[in-house]
């Protein structure tokens, strides 16, 4: 029995050997010391991003010794944290930057001391850093075009904005405005400020609809706008859901599924055949950054800017997953059962570049 087990283990190891050959040289040496500096942890997106980085580190546990720290919303603290990480002997620092510019001197300093710096989601302007980002202009343009198309290029639009003063918000709004400006018959009738938060978006939309009626609205655009506007519409007794883009939550995708697609779903977190386009910054950007950092440490050349995949899910392409394994995601499923994740959970986790991480990685930090 024992020998049997050992033999099977050996056989397994032999099978894996060709795969592990690349990592073997790294495993001989000490694992690389890599730090993750997050700015805050207080929302679903950040929690998933952190889980996916952890999963990626576990998938490469022989090569990485990962330590995760959170700095909070104050830029000075993240600067102090990056400096301390450099002092602690980091080989690479992955950072979710609180500001695209304020960290530059600290990042420059890290680079000068031979530490690799990868920023994810938001980019940093310091040229020595690597950026793993989502193309916000493309995201906004694509989703705005889709919404405009669904509105037949005419009618009244609610335009929801995010956190003012950030590059992502400014870029997205400018790109989307440029799209809507092409169609003179589309009129923006309100610009609620949703702060990229479902709870705030709900309040802001309620405020707008206190002075406007759903009958006069033909479309909604903006991050965190869709689930809440559709829910409000249903509560107002209006079953004719307006086209909406673009958030990445599972709630939105479930609502986009044809009615009756999931048994037992209730309330507004249920399939209703809503017309929408789901697009959002990829929560796996940090995990990709970690993988790329390992590549650079192993001597490979990596582009300074890596763009995350931007897979639009529309009412035509929305598809329910059974388990959410990497293979299943690769085959094109993109939505999860309401019994598995809450509505606000970000479902845009598929990425062909990272076979290490699937649904379990985003949910609990377990690699495939």
């Amino acid at each position, binding site marked *: 029995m024992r020998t049997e087990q050992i033999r099977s283990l050996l056989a397994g190891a032999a099978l894996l050997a060709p795969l592990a050959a690349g990592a073997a040289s790294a495993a001989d040496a000490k694992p690389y010391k890599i730090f993750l500096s997050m700015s805050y*942890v*207080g929302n*679903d997106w950040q*929690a*998933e991003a*952190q*889980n996916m980085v952890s999963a990626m580190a576990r998938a490469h546990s022989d090569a990485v010794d990962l*330590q*995760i*720290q959170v700095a*909070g*919303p*104050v*830029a*000075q603290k993240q*600067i*102090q*944290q990056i400096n*301390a990480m450099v*002092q*602690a002997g980091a080989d690479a620092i992955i950072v979710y930057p*609180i*500001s695209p*510019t*304020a960290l*530059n*001197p600290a990042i420059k*300093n890290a680079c000068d001391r031979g530490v690799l710096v990868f920023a994810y989601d938001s980019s940093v*302007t310091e040229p020595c850093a690597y950026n793993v980002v989502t193309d916000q202009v493309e995201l906004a343009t694509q989703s705005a075009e889709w919404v405009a198309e669904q509105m037949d290029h005419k009618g009244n639009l609610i335009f929801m904005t995010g956190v*003012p*003063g*950030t590059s992502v*918000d*400014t*870029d997205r709004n400018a790109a989307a405005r440029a799209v809507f400006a092409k169609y003179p018959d589309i009129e923006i009738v*309100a610009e609620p*400020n949703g702060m990229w*938060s*479902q*709870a705030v978006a*709900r*309040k*802001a939309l309620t*405020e707008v*609809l*206190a*002075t*406007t*009626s759903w009958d006069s609205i033909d479309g909604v655009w903006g991050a965190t706008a869709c*689930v809440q506007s559709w*829910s409000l519409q249903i*509560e107002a*007794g209006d079953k004719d859901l307006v086209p909406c883009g673009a958030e990445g939550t599972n709630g939105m995708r479930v609502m986009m599924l044809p009615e009756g697609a999931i048994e037992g779903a209730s*309330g*507004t977190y249920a399939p209703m055949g809503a017309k929408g386009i789901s697009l959002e910054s990829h929560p796996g950007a940090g995990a990709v950054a970690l993988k790329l950092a390992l590549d650079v440490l192993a001597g490979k050349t990596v582009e300074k800017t890596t763009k995350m995949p931007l897979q639009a899910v529309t009412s035509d392409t929305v598809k329910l997953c059974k388990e959410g394994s990497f293979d299943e995601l690769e085959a094109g499923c993109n939505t999860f059962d309401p019994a598995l*994740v*809450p*509505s*606000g959970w970000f479902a845009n986790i598929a990425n062909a570049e990272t076979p290490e991480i699937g649904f379990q990685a985003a949910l*609990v930090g377990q690699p495939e």
Partner: protein
Amino acid sequence: MTATITTSRELARSLARSQGLLVALATLAAVFILLQANLASGFSYYDVSSTFASTATLAIAAIGATIVVISRGLDLSVGSVISLSNCLIAVNMGDSLGSMVLWALLGIAAGALVGLFNGIFVAVFRLPSIIVTLASMFIVEGITLMILDQPGGMVPASFSGFFLSDAVSGLLPMPAVLVVVVLFGWFALKASPFGTNLYAIGSSDEAALAKGVRVDLTRLIAYVIAGAVYGLAGMFLTAQTGSGDPTVGPPMLLPVFVAVVLGGTPFTGGRGGCLGAVFGALTLMLVVNLLLVFNVPTFYATVVEGCLLILAVLAGSRERIVEAVAGLRLWFRRRSKSAKPHVRRRHDDLPLPRPDDSLPSNAVLRWMTRHRRALRSSLPVYVSLLVVLAATLTLFEGRLSGASYFNSLFVLTTFLAVLALGQGSVVIGGGLDLSVPAMITFSGVMLGEWTIGGMGGFAPLAVIALAAVIGAASGFGIGVIGVHPLIMTLAVDGILAGVTLVATGGTPRGAAPAWISWLMTGKIAGLTPVVPALLVFVAGASLLLARTPFARRLYAVGSNPVMAYFSGVSIARTQIAAYALSAACAALVGILLTGFSGQAFIDMGTPYLLPSIAVVVIGGTAMTGGRGTYLGMFGGALLMTALSMALQGMLIPIAVRNVIFGAVILGAVIGLREK
């Protein structure tokens, strides 16, 4: 012989006087030693220099904030002024030396100008500083966004280089020199007649006035100096980061106040100093290194920070702890002997008070005369509310249906109206509850968890009960052990935020029970069910804060704790009750908000901290405690909601909305001007 007695007595006195400063220094030393002992390579000059570079902005800003706190004020505009100066400089500074000097000075001047604005309204118009600076915070944030709508701008490398260089190579970093220069400025100020006057007006306006101090002018100058110092902090930030970012300043608000309190300056005014604030800022920054060295998991970071805060402050209140322990032992001994401490006097044999002849005989007039102060303090907010409502109805005429507008107004007001009861009670009792955001989120999240967990209809009650217990614990720390309310509730906020993350793994599960969703989003003939419930709540809350023994004790403790104590009111018990009530109200809001949004979100409580305080103050409640009515606060909640609804519906940039919001808030409180 006598000489030694005098000197030792003097020494003891001077030690007692600078106790806050000593505790601040001891805390910093403790954190540093802990860090040094656990760092593999020790704290090098590089660490010293980079720590000073990251701390200087916070330290300088905390110096400014301390000056206002000594004058018995509170300045919420600090973070926004830092960003204003930062963006102004980053956008405009050119490469020439002249341009560098000019724009550095203009950045400081912009801060001083905001300080002048604050000073005029606080000192000349006698408005509560917290609301004036809240309004200027919004206005300045709006103006900053107009100058720079996203991170950008650049300052010459030589400008950054100058402020980040070594003053003495390998020995003294320039940021440390800058902080020391500002501190010397403060010491010079403190030694001047202005310094004496500043401490005098902070202790007592009346006493200072009686001594011939120009109270208004001194206070005005304090705000102007503070504003200029924030501007200087923003200028250094610009040099340090080499660029501008309109979002970098505002999150510094709470850390600045923590640095002030850790520095041993009490919010009661007239005491403390700026050196301690610098120690406080350094401590806060070194905690970042401490978290890294001990590899504290992300979800626990705020928990550790919260506990460190309480520990640091506890170290300074040894006497109170000894007192509290002795008191508890006495209480237990009495309990075990089951002897009542004293027999309460029976009241039914006392003669009833005679009717007051000086009041008018007409019932309505009599009521109005008796409540004239309450009416006067809550009238301005209702007048402003009418103005905002009239403006809204005119602005959206044609596309607005009255019934649905007012329904939404009341639904959205519910959150602030409930928070106002809790926060209001705490403020009337002379405190402040900063744990509201984390308590809201925690309650919403627990509601989801426990509803799935099968507690069904009991989940909301269990959540509120748990919250009340946590609130009572805050009240115990404040009332019995004597931890400053700001620190205690901020620490509890951090601990709760961490607990919420750990409990959920960052992803809250479950939804509100169906009946709560129905309460917040259902419709009975066009009316959301929560609206009638809100009216019942308002009636109940008004009675609670007007007619109950709890209210009388609360007002007594808030007006004058010493007198309350001698009148037989237990200060500790009253404060425990107030904080428990505040926590329960926040929990109720968390529950309602979960029903309203469909599920709980980790960030859903964050936007409610400042509004919860603002509605209380707009409604005529004095931050110094002892005054305020629930009807006034409810008016404040209605006004804030109506204003936000009007602005949200308008097609104007966020920057302009911020400016209008601030201006209207300021306009609404002008009527609160004290004679």
